[in-house]
Each structure stands twice: as structure tokens, then as C-alpha cells.
């Protein structure tokens, strides 16, 4: 095998080597998107750093540190930490559910000093890590065998159940999508996939009937007829569409978005931050931001393809998919194409937990990139 003159080919990289290998272009992209988010938080607070922008700067800085730290850690270390991370996240998830049910009302987070940690966010990374490690050890034939498949599905299903009980439909959907995508990428046979898709299609009406909460059904109904109740449940979607649409080609200008400044937009600092961005920067700005996102994703997919270990490939792809599911659900939701499910826009929305999870994910992605030449035998369990 002809190896390129590449430091990683030495298979053991010095710390300096790793820093050189960091994909600084990707870091720059992430910083650009993060800054756009901070600027919008400043804007929607009527041009004030309080209450969101200043804290988001803290979140983002912390996230950058976490990202770079994660990126220089050997991919095999992450591999050995995969199951413990999954277990830890699951433990927190159970704990938060129990506390939530014991206390009054649902609780989705654990307070860690200034940071509210959402175990469901952590779970997404834990699941991607654990599933990548599990599938790394399975050959393409083994993936489609009932026992490994059942184990894989259980790894997806158990956290999904706890998250849906919180109740948090949006995150549940993302966990399911992340897990199933990894099974698909690991080579799951179409003989499994096709019938399952059919069964899901059949199950949707049943889920509507027995599983979904009233407030979730209301969101779907509102989505279908938003104008029927423009001042009530349809308010969010109607106002979001007005905000985006009124931005026009060039937008209203930074801090000039009337819809968010005058509180017509709900949740303007979290789920609807993208809407404010579209209002203030118009079609041109929104398209530019989409391009930035697309380039990040392109980098991610490229990283996955170039990794020499199955674990690295699945990990990178899992993280990128998680990222794109966020963008997709949030983007489609605020533009009135799918019901409101309460998913933030990654890197833009206010929130420490989501920011740290996303940045940690990018750290893992960059670790895959730095260690892309590292080969890991199928039956290896990492290096700890």
C-alpha cells in the first residue's frame, strides 16, 4: 500500500503533528456560523448582549475548547470510551426521567452549575459512538443477522423510549434517524429495510391514535391548517413565515428585524433564530448561511470517506447525519413545511447543552480526520 507523505502514516502522531492535522478550514467555518448565531442573539435581544449573546459567547468558547480537545484524542481511545459514554448517557437519561416524574412536571435537564445539561443531547453522541463501535466489529453479513441486529436496535430503542417519555418527540426522531442511518451505512440488507419502511408507513395512523400527546397532535393539525387559527396555535408558523418572507431579497438589515424585535416571533432566541436571520439578512444572507452549512457537511462526508477504519467512518457519518437532521427539521419546521417539533438550529440557537454537544461532535469528527490513516482491526476494542 502506497502511503502518501503524511504524518499519520507513521501511525503514532505527536501532539504537534495532530495540531498540524487539525482541519483549520472546518474550524473557521464553524466559527463563522457560531458568530452569526451570536450576532443574531444580540439582535433579537434588541441589540443587547444580555440576556443571550454574552452567555452564548461563553458556550461557544467552551465548545471550541471541547472540540479541539476531543479532536486530538486518539480515535482508538474514543472507541474504548464508546460503551461507557453510552452507558453514562443512558444513566443520566433514566435519572432525569425519574426525577422528572417524582418532581412536578417533566424535566429534561440536569443543572450543572451554570450549565443545564440535557441528557438527551448527550445521548445522541453516546449512541453514535456506541453503535459505531458495535457495528465496527460486525462484518456485512453479521449486520443483517437477527441477533446482532436485535442488539443494535435495542441500543437505539432503549434511549429512544426514555426520550419519548420525557416527552421530547423531536429528539426521539433524531435518535431513531441517527441509529437507523448507521445500521443502513453498515450494510444492513434491503431485505430488512424494505419491509420495515412498509410497516412504519402502516404504523403512522396507529401512532396518531395511541401514542402522540395532544399537544403533539395539535402541532400537526396546526401545521396542516395554520391559517385556521392564526392567533392561536397557528401563531408560531404564521409569524415565522411572515418574518422570513418579509426579509425579501436583501433583508431588513442587522437588528432591524421587526418580527423578532417586537416579539411577534415566539422562541426567537432558540428554535426560531434562523427565522430572525432570514428576516434580517434576506434571501442572500440565508442562502449564504446554507452554503456554509453545506460546506461543513461536505467536509464531514469527505472525512468519513477518507477514514481507514470502519469505526471512524461510521462515527464521522453519524455525527454529520445528526447535524444535518437538526438543520433539516429546524429549517423545514420554521419555514412551515413540517410541524413544529422543538428542535434548535445547530450552532445558531441559544443553549449551552446543544452547543456543547454539537461542538463535541465536531471534535470527534476532527479526531476521525486527524486519525484517518489509523487502521483498527475488526475485533479491536480500542486502546484503553
Amino acid at each position: 500500500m502506497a502511503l502518501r507523505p503524511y504524518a499519520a502514516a507513521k501511525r503514532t502522531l505527536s501532539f504537534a503533528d495532530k495540531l498540524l492535522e487539525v482541519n483549520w478550514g472546518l474550524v473557521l467555518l464553524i466559527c463563522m456560523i457560531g458568530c452569526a448565531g451570536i450576532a443574531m442573539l444580540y439582535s433579537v435581544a434588541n441589540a443587547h448582549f444580555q440576556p443571550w449573546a454574552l452567555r452564548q459567547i461563553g458556550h461557544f468558547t467552551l465548545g471550541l475548547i471541547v472540540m479541539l480537545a476531543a479532536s486530538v484524542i486518539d480515535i482508538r481511545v474514543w472507541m474504548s470510551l464508546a460503551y461507557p459514554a453510552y452507558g453514562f448517557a443512558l444513566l443520566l437519561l433514566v435519572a432525569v426521567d425519574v426525577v422528572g416524574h417524582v418532581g412536578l412536571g417533566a424535566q429534561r435537564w440536569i443543572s450543572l452549575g451554570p450549565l443545564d445539561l440535557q441528557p438527551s443531547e448527550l445521548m445522541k453522541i453516546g449512541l453514535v459512538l456506541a453503535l459505531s463501535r458495535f457495528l465496527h466489529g460486525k462484518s456485512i453479513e453479521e449486520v443483517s443477522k437477527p441477533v446482532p441486529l436485535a442488539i443494535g436496535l435495542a441500543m437505539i430503542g432503549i434511549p429512544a423510549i426514555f426520550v419519548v417519555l420525557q416527552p421530547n418527540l423531536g429528539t426521539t426522531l433524531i435518535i431513531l434517524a441517527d441509529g437507523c442511518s448507521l445500521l443502513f451505512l453498515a450494510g444492513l440488507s434491503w431485505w430488512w429495510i424494505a419491509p420495515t419502511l412498509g410497516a412504519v408507513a402502516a404504523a403512522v395512523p396507529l401512532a396518531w391514535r395511541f401514542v402522540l400527546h395532544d399537544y403533539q397532535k395539535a402541532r400537526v393539525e396546526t401545521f396542516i391548517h395554520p391559517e385556521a387559527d392564526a392567533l392561536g396555535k397557528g401563531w408560531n408558523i404564521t409569524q415565522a413565515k411572515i418574518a422570513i418572507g418579509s426579509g425579501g431579497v436583501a433583508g431588513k438589515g442587522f437588528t432591524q428585524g421587526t418580527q423578532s424585535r417586537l416579539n411577534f416571533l415566539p422562541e426567537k432566541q432558540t428554535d426560531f433564530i434562523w427565522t430572525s436571520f432570514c428576516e434580517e439578512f434576506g434571501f442572500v444572507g440565508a442562502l449564504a448561511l446554507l452554503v456554509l452549512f453545506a460546506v461543513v457537511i461536505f467536509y464531514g462526508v469527505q472525512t468519513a470517506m477518507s477514514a481507514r477504519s470502519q469505526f471512524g467512518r461510521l462515527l464521522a457519518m453519524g455525527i454529520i447525519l445528526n447535524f444535518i437532521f437538526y438543520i433539516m427539521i429546524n429549517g423545514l419546521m420554521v419555514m412551515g413545511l413540517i410541524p413544529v417539533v422543538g428542535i434548535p438550529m445547530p450552532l445558531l440557537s441559544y443553549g449551552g447543552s446543544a452547543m456543547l454537544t454539537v461542538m463535541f461532535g465536531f471534535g470527534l469528527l476532527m479526531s476521525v480526520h486527524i486519525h484517518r490513516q489509523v487502521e483498527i482491526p475488526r475485533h479491536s476494542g480500542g486502546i484503553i
Partner: protein
Amino acid sequence: MPLFDKKDKSRYATFTRRSVGMGAGMTAVFAVLAGRLYQLQIRDGDQYMVEAEDNRVSERLIAPPRGRIMDRFGVELANSRRNYRVLLVSEQATEGVAQALDTIGKVIVLSDQQKKKIQHDIAMNKKFVPVPVAENLTWDEFSRVNLHLPYLPGVQCDVGETRDYPFGKELVHILGYVASVSPQEIDKDADPLMSLPGMRIGKRGIEKQFDKQIRGSAGASRVEVNAYGRIIRELGKDAGEPGEDIYLTIDREVQALADQRLCDESAAMVVMDVNNGDVIALSSTPGFDPNWFNTGLTNSQWHDLTTSDHKPLLNKVTSGIYPPGSTFKLAVALAAIEAGIATPDYRVTCNGRITVGNHTFNCWAWTTYHHGHGSLDVEGAIKNSCDVFFYETARRVGIDKIHQAARKLGLGAPTGIELPGEHSGLMPSSEWKQKTYKQAWQQGDTLSVAIGQGYVTATPLQLVQQTARLASGKAVSPRIVHSVGGKQVARPEVARLDVSDEALARVRSGMNRVMNEGGGTAFNWRITEPGFEMAGKTGTAQVRAYSQEEHARGITKNSALDWKLRDHALFIGYAPVIDPKYAIVSIIEHGAVQAHPHVAMARDVMLLCQQRDPSRMPAAWPVTNSASAAPPRVQGAAQPMSPQPVKAGG
């Protein structure tokens, strides 16, 4: 063990293939997002832009300042005064609304009823809307609240504007008053101001008649509001058109004296310029304070106003209908002279009674003194107000000629004064009776009309108009508004009265003798100041029919009767006798007693009016016909000319 085996290779290939497939899916997602952006922002962008503006911008009406009403010398009769108000913003009342009201109640007086109303108002409004707690506070109360303001969270002090009538009830029947808009009025008037909270519109008098002009037109403030309707900032402002000022022909000084002399009687008095019709004073008593209606009337006040037998709400000058009594004899005399019956040699002998058909009519002299007036010509009959003379003369002239003469003097038709609710009175004719009652006119009817009883009725305004026409020989009509918004109100050319000079001269001579010749019915109350002498005619109008039995036993003296049953006391006059300038009428309801002491009231007013001679003084009226000339704001600009000290208004 090899690092890579075949199995690895195949799964890598699958991974790559499926990743590429997913990449295509991601591209599709981005394409959808971009497409949707295009749809919302470019294709439908304009429409959403409009919707966003609709969300953001709200129009608030601004009430324009209401125009002032001035007398002929610029004295402000109706203006705007500062309205000291206390408002409460419920969301800022940190200890709750009830607690806040209790605290305010320690500083200014608040009844439980008021508190309940405020609680209701607060519940009806958004929590950031300031709700009035108290209005029209005195300066003392207002400063007390201001002093305690640091301890009253959510309380705001505010100075607004409200209508004020500095002279209170004195001019109420001219000015009218303003009050809150009723729901029916909102339906009738499309002016957006009508639905403005706290809006007041004119309900009577000039305020009602010229409401549109005095009101002005609404301004608007474009404000940016947030999703909860809270105002963020003002984007633009259109102040609207302020209401127009109105100048009246009234002289406040003469008006004040008229009002003061009528005192608490149920009475009316009008003074007008005989040459151009300017009304100098117009008083109807009792009145009421128009400020009550602006600030809100109490139940007991309303009850008193509506149930009083003195009818304070009625403008007796324009809407009170009275039998003209003996004052009507002037019209009969005029008709007789014009008809050629009452020639200078024409005389009638009064023996105290006259029998027409099988009915005997008494002269007032017979009822009082049991003798007649003897032989009288027209002037003597006017001087003595001899009933028998006019019974006999009217019988000869006939109702239709009397009707004709009276119509020339303006009876039986509205005068057209710029005040709402004017009555036309009634001047009967044989045709009228046929039409109304399907009965022929009887000679008895004529005899009743001859002394101003029976069918004939008139308003005090018609009587003063009649007097002015007799005095000037011109067909003048009373007018009370000089200019609106700096533009003089157009008046019709005053034509000559279609009556011969000889007839006018003889009637005037009779009126002169009433007052200025010993034995005239009003001689005791004449004006003695040389050059200011007044001519006039007294009148007594019965308000009930005397029964045969009463006639037999002798008429009961008025002073012995219930107030409601006493006769009305009338007087009309003009002055000076030579080259008349002013005409006057006074009617005291149920005020007739022995002789005519009430003439003194008219005499005093007429004397003051002539001494001041307001029509000769430079008025404060806008000089030109254009609206640009701003009238002086200073009260009583003409005061240096005034012979009497003018009390500062307000």
C-alpha cells in the same frame, strides 16, 4: 491476522456507496430549504412585507383641541382647561391594584363606588394601559398626589385638556355643553373621533349646532407596537386640524346683568341690535352649570334638573312658547292702520266691557278698577293697553289681516337663529283653523287673539324680533354667531319692512307713551337718563281660562294664587326712542302681580346696554374674511373702552 480482509473491503464499498446515496439525499434537503426560501422571500416577499408592517404599525387617533367660543369682545366663554388626572398602570402596581387604590385613597378622596369602577376599567384593559383613577382634581389634590408619587408604584400624574365654561350657568342656554358620546351618536357619525375614549361632543346650543367646526378633525399618530400591543415608539404624527374658534355677537357684560336680574325666576330675556340683528344678551333662567355634564352628573343633580317646575334644561328664549298677551296689540294696531281702519281720527270708546254675540268681554281696567278707558285713538289704546279698543278694532280688521301684519313682524315662523331646537310659535288664520280643526273661524277667536290670547303663541325670540322690526322698520332677524374659524357668517341682506312709515311711526309713538307719558302702563319703570329713553309695551298672559263663576265673583288676585296658576308677565321694548339701537324682551313665567314691576329688570339691562353701547365698541372679531387673522387670545381686548369694570373671567 491481516488488518484488512475481504469482508472489510466489501463493507467499505457498501459504506461508500450508501454514503454517496445519503449525500444525494442531503443535497436534496438543501435544495428544498433553498427552494422554500425562494418561495417565501422572493416570490411572496412583498405580501409578507405588508403583513409584517400590519403587525408592526398601529394608528392611534389624536383628539384635536376643541375650538373656543368668545363673546364679541373676545372674552372666552368656552375654552379648554387643564385637567389634572391621576392614572394607574396595573402592571406597575407592585402591591396589587386594590392595595394601590387604598394607598391613593389616603391622599385623595376615592369612594368605594369609584374604586369598583376603576377595578372594572383595569380588568377591561391590557395591564400596561394607564387607566384614569381620578380626573378634574384641584391643584391641591394634584400636588398632594405628586408629592406622594415615590410611594405610589404604578401611579402616573397627567395633565390633559377638558372643556371649561368659566362663567358656569350664565351662558349655558347659548353655549350648551359637551358630554360623552352615546352609542347611537357613534352610529350616526362616521368621524373616527367619535369612538375615541373620553371624547366629548356638543349636546346643546352652539356646542351642538357648530360641533363639527369646533371639534376639528382627528389627527393620527403612527406608532410601532409589539406583539402585545405595547407602544414601542412613535413613527410619525399628524396633529390633525384644531377646532375652529367661534365669535358670538353676545356682550358678556350685558348677558351677566340680564342673568343676574332675572335671578331665580323662571324667565327669559333677550337683547338684540335692531339694525343688524346681533343678539347682545340671551338669558333663560334658571340655568345649570354646563361643567357638570363634562365631568359627569350625579344622580341627584340629574333628578333636580329634570323634575324642577322651573325647567332649567329648557332654553325658554328659543323653545318656550307663550301667549304674547298685550304685546300682541302692537301687531293688531299695525294691521288696523295698514288696513285703513285706524286712521288718525279713528277712536273707540271703552266703557269697560264689550258684548259680541251673546258674550261679554271685559277690559282689564274694568276687572281692576270697574271703569273704562273712555275714548281712545290707537296710540292712547297702546299706552293704556285698552282691551276693549283692540277687541273692537280687531273685530273690524278681521283675523286674516292681523295674521298678515303679524307675519311681517316675524311671528308664526322660526327666526333662524343659530341655535338648535327653535320653535316657531303659532300665528293663526282662518285658513289655518279650517285646516287644523275643520271649523270656521269665529269672531270670539279674533277677540282672544286681539289681546294675544287664544290660539296665538310666540317665543321670546320672536317677540324681540317683532320689537326690533317695529323699531327699525327693517326685516331684521336675530343672529348670535359672528364668525366661525375667522370667517364671518354670511347674513341675508336686511330688507325694509313692507309696512308704511306712517303705521310704524304711530305704533312707535304709542310705545313711547307707554313708558314716557304719565299714566302709561310702564311709566313708573321708564329710563330717565336723557338720550337713553326706552319705548315699550307691557303684557300679561293668562295661563288658564277664567270660569264664568270666577268672573261673577271677581278675578282672584295673582298674588293669592298658586305660583303655577299666576299669569306670565311680559315686556317688550326698544331704546333709545329716537334712532333706536336695541330691542329687548323679558318674560317672567307666572310673574304677573299688580302693575308691572318686572319692567325694572328690562330697564336696568337696557340702560347698561346703551351705556356700554357694544355695537359701537370695536369688537374683537377677526377683521378680515380670511381664516389667517388670528384673534387676540387676551381676554377682553376691548376692555379699555368699557365704561364698566370687567370682571376677569375664569
